[in-house]
């Protein structure tokens, strides 16, 4: 990923969880480097939640190990977990206590969290004026922000977020995303986030780890050319375009014979061709079609969204 020099803060090695002989998570390995946001993707039941919960020690792993900041979750839990901040599903608090009382609960449980750090964390998420109110009066968005504050309280090096945007409205989702980007860039915190909102992941993550049936399917970078439907040729100016023509049969024959064309296929029934070629060859394709007397109605770039890729990776037989 071109960031090999960055230090690894979270590493999963051959992590396996078996319940009653069935492997929920099977030999899963991946790692997170400082300051990167990685998405954990998979269809329902793929083992995302189990994986996240094994990282934070809520679920015990059957085999393998997870290290955080060099400490093993298995053998040295208290030292491993001190580098981790987590929001597991919706953050839940003691509703009959104030926001401040809730934060103080977690302040007392960690080393070196001062009162000014508690205030700082509350200010980061803009809750400083609501700290004196009981949490039962908070909206879901405010609870979500308090969740971020509690996760950042002890200055972790990794944030683990399980479905953090569940139940949030679009504004809340956007706010959450901005906070994530902010803490990753400004504080160098690595973030692992599981979500089924693929478009969200696309906007937020620099890499995605895709799992299915508890196994690793692929690890992909997001961004620069990664939207290419074949996943190959990223960054080389190779694009795939959809061309709507009057005579697809002849057009296909003509285009296929051209130099520099990577692939050309019929696409659907609407007289469309899907052509993969270098960016600078597009004008000559259109010239050629014009010269052959074939009408060109539309030329559009096909940019596979993460969703389409996801369907391909996971066989597309299940809804994420």
């Amino acid at each position, binding site marked *: 990923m071109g960031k090999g020099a960055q230090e690894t803060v979270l590493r999963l090695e051959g992590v396996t969880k078996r319940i009653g002989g069935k492997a929920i998570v099977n030999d899963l390995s991946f790692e997170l480097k400082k300051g990167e946001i990685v998405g954990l993707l998979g269809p329902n039941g793929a083992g995302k939640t*189990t994986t996240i919960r094994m990282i934070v020690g809520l679920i015990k792993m059957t085999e393998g190990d997870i290290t955080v900041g060099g400490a093993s979750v298995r053998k040295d839990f*208290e030292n491993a*977990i001190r580098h981790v901040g*987590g929001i*597991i599903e919706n*953050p839940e608090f*003691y509703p009959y206590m104030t926001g401040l009382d809730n934060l103080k609960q977690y302040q007392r449980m960690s080393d070196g969290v001062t009162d000014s750090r508690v205030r700082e964390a509350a200010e980061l998420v803009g809750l400083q004026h609501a700290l004196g109110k009981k949490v039962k009066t908070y909206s879901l968005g405010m609870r979500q922000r308090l969740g971020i504050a*509690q996760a950042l309280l002890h200055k972790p090096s990794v944030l683990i977020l399980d479905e953090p945007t569940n139940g949030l409205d679009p504004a809340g989702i956007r706010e959450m995303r901005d906070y994530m980007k902010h803490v990753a860039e400004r504080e160098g915190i690595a973030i692992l986030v599981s979500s089924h909102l693929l478009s969200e992941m696309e906007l937020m993550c620099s890499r995605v780890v895709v799992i299915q049936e508890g196994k690793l399917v692929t690890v992909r970078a997001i961004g620069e050319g990664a939207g290419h439907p074949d996943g190959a040729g990223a960054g080389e100016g190779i694009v795939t375009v959809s061309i709507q023509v009057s005579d697809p049969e002849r057009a296909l024959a003509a285009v296929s014979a051209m130099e520099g064309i990577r692939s050309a296929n019929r696409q659907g029934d609407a007289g469309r061709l899907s052509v993969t070629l270098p960016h600078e060859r597009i004008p000559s394709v259109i010239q050629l079609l014009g010269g052959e007397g074939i009408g060109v109605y539309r030329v559009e770039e096909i940019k596979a969204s993460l969703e389409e890729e996801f369907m391909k990776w996971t066989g597309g037989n299940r809804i994420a």
Partner: protein
Amino acid sequence: MHKMGALIWNEWLKLYKKRSFFVPYAVMACYIGFAVFVVVKKYYEPGSAFAFMDDIASMRFVGQLLPIVAIIAIANVVPMEFRLGTIKLLLIRSQSRNKILASKFIVTLLHGFSLILALFAMAFACGLALYGFGPFDWAAVARNMLDLAAYTFIYAALTFMVGVLTKSSGATVGISMFCLMIGSLVTMLLSQYSFAKFLLFPNADLSVYRNGGQPMLEGMSLPFSAAVLAAYAVVFMAASFATFINRDVS
């Protein structure tokens, strides 16, 4: 035990900040108020402040109530974390599950002791108001307190364990109350069998041995009952800790 004090303080705040915290104290106060009324009406005449306190704060009267009112709070100590979902934030701190459960258990006991102290304080105050200060048999008071503490402790430990096992406060209240209620009935039904004396219920009330009193079943003595209670307490604790430490939270 790094941070143990902080953990205990956390747990105490979780109990104390609840509006229902004062309910058990209020229930006991009502009972004692009723007893004062009965004395004032001369339906019952203990004769001295000490006698009043010794009667009221004993297994014969309000003391019997202690585990029942204690259960209200104890049944929530562990199940509440699961019901609210806060268990997920509680267990991802740099503290072992052992320490977290230990802090919860210690607070459970502190709560029980606070109820006993409140009971004695209220009974003492009312006794003074009724009769003024007279001769007090402090050894008897201490013995009474210990008996109540043992009785409250063993049911507190049972409730705590049921809470850890079921994760549900409703089920915990139900099961613990049921155990309290059927105790004497079960003892009676099984009294013909010799194993009955190893049951929890006939041993829970150590006050029966006071003043040379007779135990419920043959072959029982104060050291015997104390040992049985200790064994039950160890089993309850072991089951609670083993379950809590190995549980997958999903």
